[in-house]
């Protein structure tokens, strides 16, 4: 059977060149980067080279990059670490209602511990407007955390403008850039970003690696305490092979990012045009222009999302309803609720996230399958 993977926002396959680069670091160059012998120094060197490249990719200094286990840890480290360091001084955090659970749940946890949190509501496209951020600022606000690109809708927030507001008010600014990193140009200096989260497995790198960028001079407590790894920011033996893989994945993004973005934009438009002409009663979600190329989020009237997904899966097509993380739960996505999607559409939403492997041919196959499936399921549904 044909296999078409259109769930690149959930995770990506490791690029062939990335895996190739990683291989020697499992069995030959396997040293602990903290050891002073040659095995250790070899590991130390590649970790520092990786730090250098990743830093350069977002306009940071290498000393500002902390390697850790992924996007969720980065988000937790940012929110918990700053809250701990600012305890007694800062009591209010501004974030949004469309953040990834790694931010929302952490903010909820901090709320239980005496921090107050404002969750800004996006407009119907999933966009957060800079004036909303400005209006929410209070004297005791110490942190603004707004995601760069929303993982369900692909909507892109005006991070540079929000960063400028934060800076004007002397407030820290964190952005969860897990879905933007490697897909859009990011410059932490120009955008006034103080902290930024990114994850390797979303950009054809291995799972289990990520970074938190922490601007020089920022006071932050550790989340994972212990030995003085990562310039005393994050304890734990460095995942050398993972970091080397992340490094290579970033290098590839540097090279292909612009051209891939253009290709995926064309592909997504092609996809949507075909859908619109072959399937009735479907709308596209997300911002019409402010969005990343790869994501196409659609709601089908009168069809349930999971049934769609399973049916697609049986035809070898991998997509997602909302985020991968909320699958297995029955609640409609908090993002779709935040954009106030009509109730009858909430449960009929699919996210296709295109990536390097996808072709026009994949889309033809998918739309054919999808229109057949939608028709079948609609026929099965009671008329309401």
């Amino acid at each position: 059977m044909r296999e078409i993977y259109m769930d690149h926002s959930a995770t990506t396959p490791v690029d062939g060149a990335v895996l190739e680069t990683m291989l020697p670091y499992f069995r030959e160059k396997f040293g602990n980067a903290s050891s002073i012998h040659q095995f250790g120094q070899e590991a130390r060197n590649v970790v520092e080279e990786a730090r250098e490249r990743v830093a350069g990719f977002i306009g940071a200094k290498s000393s500002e990059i902390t390697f850790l286990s992924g996007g969720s840890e980065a988000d937790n480290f940012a929110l918990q670490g700053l809250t701990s360091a600012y305890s007694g001084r800062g009591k209010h955090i501004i974030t949004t209602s469309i953040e990834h659970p790694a931010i929302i749940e952490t903010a909820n946890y901090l709320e239980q511990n005496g921090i107050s949190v404002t969750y800004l509501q996006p407009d119907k496209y999933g966009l957060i407007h800079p004036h909303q951020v400005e209006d929410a600022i209070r004297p005791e606000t110490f942190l603004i955390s707004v995601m760069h690109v929303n993982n369900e809708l692909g909507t892109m927030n005006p991070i540079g403008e929000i960063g400028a507001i934060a800076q004007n008010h002397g407030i820290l600014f964190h952005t969860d850039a897990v879905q933007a990193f490697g897909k859009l140009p990011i410059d932490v200096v120009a955008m006034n970003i103080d902290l930024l989260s990114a994850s390797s497995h979303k950009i054809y790198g291995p799972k289990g690696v990520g970074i938190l960028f922490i601007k020089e001079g920022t006071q932050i407590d550790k989340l994972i305490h212990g030995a003085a790894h990562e310039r005393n920011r994050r304890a734990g033996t460095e995942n050398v092979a993972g970091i080397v893989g992340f490094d290579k994945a970033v290098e590839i993004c540097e090279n292909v990012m612009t051209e891939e973005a253009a290709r995926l934009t064309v592909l997504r438009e092609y996809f949507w045009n075909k859908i619109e002409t072959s399937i009735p009663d479907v709308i596209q979600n997300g911002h019409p222009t402010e969005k990343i190329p790869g994501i196409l989020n659609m709601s089908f009237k009168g069809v349930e999302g999971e049934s769609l997904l399973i049916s697609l899966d049986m035809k070898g097509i991998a997509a997602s309803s909302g985020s991968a993380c909320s699958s297995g739960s029955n609640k409609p996505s908090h993002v779709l609720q935040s954009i106030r999607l009509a109730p009858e559409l909430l449960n009929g939403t699919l996210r296709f996230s295109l990536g390097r492997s996808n072709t026009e041919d994949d889309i033809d196959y998918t739309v054919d399958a999808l229109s057949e499936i939608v028709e079948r399921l609609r026929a099965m549904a009671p008329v309401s």
Partner: protein
Amino acid sequence: MYSRKVMDHFTNPCNVGEIENPDGVGEVDNPTCGDMMRITIRVEEGVITDIKFKTFGGGAAIAASSMVTEPVKGKPLKETVKITNKDVAEELDGLPKVKLHCSLLAENGLKAALDDYYKKISYPYFIM
């Protein structure tokens, strides 16, 4: 995630559709997840001679709908009344925990249809 049996019933559900001028109609929904089900039955001399369902819902809801209708056809009403969501889930070789409520939808749909029939014939016994 789902058992083979759930997948079979999802792909080829039995008794999909709607009986015209049915003797009983059950319509239930689950407001939390938005699932909806409509069951129609034909009853002749205390026996369900035909049953059809329409369901809006996920894999578990559709499979459970199919599963709840299957053993009912040709059975006396009295027996079908005893079918519970536990039976349905078991017959499907289990359901993921978070999807158990979908089998409840099926049980309730069937009961609502029976109920409607009893109401129509003014039988003094209500199931729900």
